C-alpha cells in the first residue's frame, strides 16, 4: 500500500513537471544495485537538471549538474525492486530504470516450525521453513545454505543443510523416541532462529489394570501407563474403566494422576472389569466367581 502510494506520488510529481524546465541531458544507469550499497550515476550533457528515482516505498530527488556523477550514499536505496529514473532538464526529460537487488549477505531469517507439539517417533512429522532476508528485510533470492538442527532430547541431533530456492528453504525432521522439549534451530550465516518442539508420548501401550477390594467396593487401578517407547503417558489422560455384571454396566472416566488412573466400582461377584483409553483397549479382569 505504502509502495503504491509512493509510486503514485512519484508519477504525479513527474506529471506536474513544467515543460519549461526542459534542457538536454542523459544518464548512464547501472543495471543492478545491491540494496543499501553506495553507488553513483554518471550524467552527460550540460546545465542543471533534477533527477527523480521512484521505487518501492521510496522516492529520491537530487539536483544534478549535468556531465557530473550523482552519488548516493550507502543506505540511500534499501528496498529491493524495480526503480524508475527520470531526469528533467531545461530542454528534455529522459527516463530509465534499474533494479535494486537484496544484499548477498543474509542478515535475518524468519523460521516457521510446525507443529509445536508432536507425538514421539513420528517420521518426517516436524517441518521447518526458513525465509532468508538481508539487513534491510529484503528476501535474499540468491541460493544460500541454511542449516537445520533438531536436538535437546536423547540421542544425537538431527542435522540437515538445505539450499534456498527463491529465498526459501525447508526441511522435515523425525521426532525423537524420548519425550521432552527439542530445540529446533535454523541458521544462515550469523542469523539463527530457535523454536521449541514439544515431543509428547504417543498412545498408551500394554494397558493393564489390577483390582483390590476397598470396603464394600472395588478399587481399580492401572499399572503406570506408558507408550510403546516407554515414555510415561501424561497426567490427565482419560482412562475408562467398565464393569459389566448381569446385563448392567458401570463406567468411570478417570484421569491419570502421577501416571496411574484409579476408580472405585461396585463389588459384584463375577463382574467383568475392563479398561480402555482412546481407541486402545487394555486387559479384562473377572472379579470373584459366578
Amino acid at each position: 500500500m505504502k509502495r503504491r502510494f509512493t509510486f503514485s506520488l512519484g508519477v504525479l510529481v513527474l506529471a506536474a513537471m513544467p515543460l519549461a524546465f526542459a534542457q538536454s541531458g542523459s544518464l548512464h544507469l547501472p543495471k543492478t544495485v545491491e540494496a543499501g550499497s553506495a553507488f553513483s550515476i554518471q550524467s552527460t550533457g550540460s546545465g542543471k537538471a533534477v533527477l527523480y528515482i521512484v521505487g518501492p516505498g521510496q522516492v529520491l530527488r537530487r539536483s544534478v549538474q549535468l556531465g557530473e556523477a550523482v552519488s548516493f550514499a550507502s543506505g540511500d536505496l534499501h528496498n529491493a525492486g524495480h526503480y524508475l529514473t527520470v531526469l528533467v532538464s531545461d530542454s528534455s526529460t529522459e527516463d530509465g530504470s534499474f533494479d535494486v537487488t537484496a544484499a548477498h549477505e543474509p542478515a535475518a531469517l524468519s523460521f516457521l516450525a510446525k507443529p509445536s507439539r508432536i507425538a514421539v517417533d513420528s517420521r518426517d512429522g516436524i517441518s521447518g521453513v526458513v525465509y532468508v532476508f538481508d539487513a534491510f528485510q529484503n528476501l535474499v533470492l540468491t541460493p544460500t545454505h541454511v542449516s537445520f538442527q533438531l536436538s535437546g532430547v536423547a540421542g544425537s541431533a538431527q542435522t540437515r543443510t538445505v539450499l534456498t530456492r527463491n529465498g526459501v528453504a525447508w526441511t522435515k525432521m523425525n521426532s525423537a523416541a524420548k519425550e521432552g522439549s527439542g530445540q529446533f534451530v535454523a541458521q544462515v550465516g550469523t542469523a539463527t532462529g530457535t523454536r521449541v518442539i514439544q515431543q509428547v508420548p504417543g498412545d498408551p501401550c500394554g494397558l493393564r489394570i489390577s483390582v483390590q477390594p476397598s470396603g464394600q467396593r472395588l478399587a481399580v487401578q492401572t499399572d503406570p501407563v506408558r507408550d510403546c517407547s516407554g515414555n510415561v503417558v501424561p497426567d490427565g489422560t482419560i482412562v475408562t474403566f467398565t464393569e459389566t455384571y448381569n446385563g448392567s454396566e458401570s463406567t468411570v472416566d478417570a484421569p491419570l494422576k502421577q501416571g496411574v488412573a484409579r476408580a472405585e466400582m461396585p463389588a459384584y461377584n463375577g463382574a467383568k472389569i475392563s479398561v480402555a483409553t482412546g481407541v486402545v483397549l487394555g486387559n479384562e479382569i473377572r472379579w470373584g466367581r459366578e
Partner: protein
Amino acid sequence: MTTGRLLAVFVTAATVALIVVGTLWPIQSAVAMAGSGADLLSSSSSAQAAVENLAAEIGRQDWEKAYSSLANKNEFTEPEFVRDLTGNYPSLRTYATLDSSDLRPLHASADEAQIQLKLRWSTVVGTFLDTRTLKVVRTDDRSDHWAVVWPIVKEPRVPPQVIPVNYLRWDVIYRGPGDDWGAQDVEAPRVRIIDMHPVDRSAGVVIMGELLNEDVVPAFVTVKATLLAKDGSVIASEDSFDKISHVLLPKQVTPFLIAFHDVALSQVDSVHMNPSATLIAASADPVIEIEDQHLNPAPGASFTGKLINESGQVVNVAHVLGTFYGKDGQLVWVADQYVDRALLPETPVSFAMSIPADIASKVGSERAITATYSSGRFQ
C-alpha cells in the same frame, strides 16, 4: 367519515367486551402470569382442585401459599419444601420455571385420593419432568376442603468436611501481540472423527458419530456437518450444538449428533464433516462414575443409570450422553439427558434418557459419558 366513526365504536366495544371476558373467565396461564391468587380459579373443594391449585401456586413460585395449603406441614418446614422443588444446591432446578402441569387421578375414595402430578419445568437446556404421586385428603369431614400430602424428597446434605483433591489442571499461555511473525503459537489439539453415520429419520437426516481427542492437552471441540447435493450445492449446514461433550480431555471420546430437519437422505450426495478443536484451560476433576447402566426395552425404551460424583466438588449441572451400538458394533444412536439436581460428593443421582423404540431393538451395547459444569468454573 361515518365509516371511520363506526369502526372506532366497533373496536372500542370489542376491546371492552374482551377485557370483561378475560377478567371473568381468565385462562390458567394468564392467572399465573398476573400473579392473582388461585382463588380466582376454584377453591380446593375437590381432590383434583386442590392439586390444580397447588400446581398453580408452585408455578407462580408462591411458596408460602403452596406450603400453607399442604396437609402435612408438620413434617417439614417451608424452606425444606422449597428446596425439594428448587434444589439444595444451585442446579437446573434452581433456575427453572414451571412450563405446564398435568394431573392424572389414580385412585379416589370419599376422604382420600391419589393423583399423579407431572410438573414440566422449563430450563435453558430444555424441559425436564418432575413426576410426583400425591395423596390428597379431605381435611374436615363436614367440609368440602381437600389438601395435598406432599411427598417430600429431602436431598441429602454433605456434612462439613475437607476432601483432599489431587488437583490436575491445564493452563495455557497464548502467543502475545509482541511476538514476531513466524514465532510459534501453542498448537491446537489434534482431534479425529473415529465413527460417523448418516441416518434417515422421519424428522429429517441425523448425522451421528464419535470424536476422539488424540492429543495430550484438553480441547474444546465442535463438529459441523454440511450436506451436499449431487450438483455440489449446499443443502444445509448445522453443528452439534449441545449433543456433544464440548470439553474433551486427552484420549477422551465423545459422541455427537447433528440433526437436519426436513431433509431426506435421498437428497444428499455427500456430507462434509468439519471437526474443530481449540486448546483451552481445563480441569481433570471431577470424576463421575456412571453406575447401574441399564437399557430398558420398548415400550418406553430408555437408558437409565446413576451418577456418582467421586470428587469433593459439587457439580451443579451434569449432562449425560449415551452412545448406542448395534449388535455388530456399529453406532446406531446418540441420546442425551441433563440431570436437574446437583451432584453432591458420593451421592447417587438417577438419570433416564429415552430412546426411539425402533432403535432400542437394535442396540447391542452402549456407552455413557458425562460433561459437568460447576458454578464459578468451566468444566
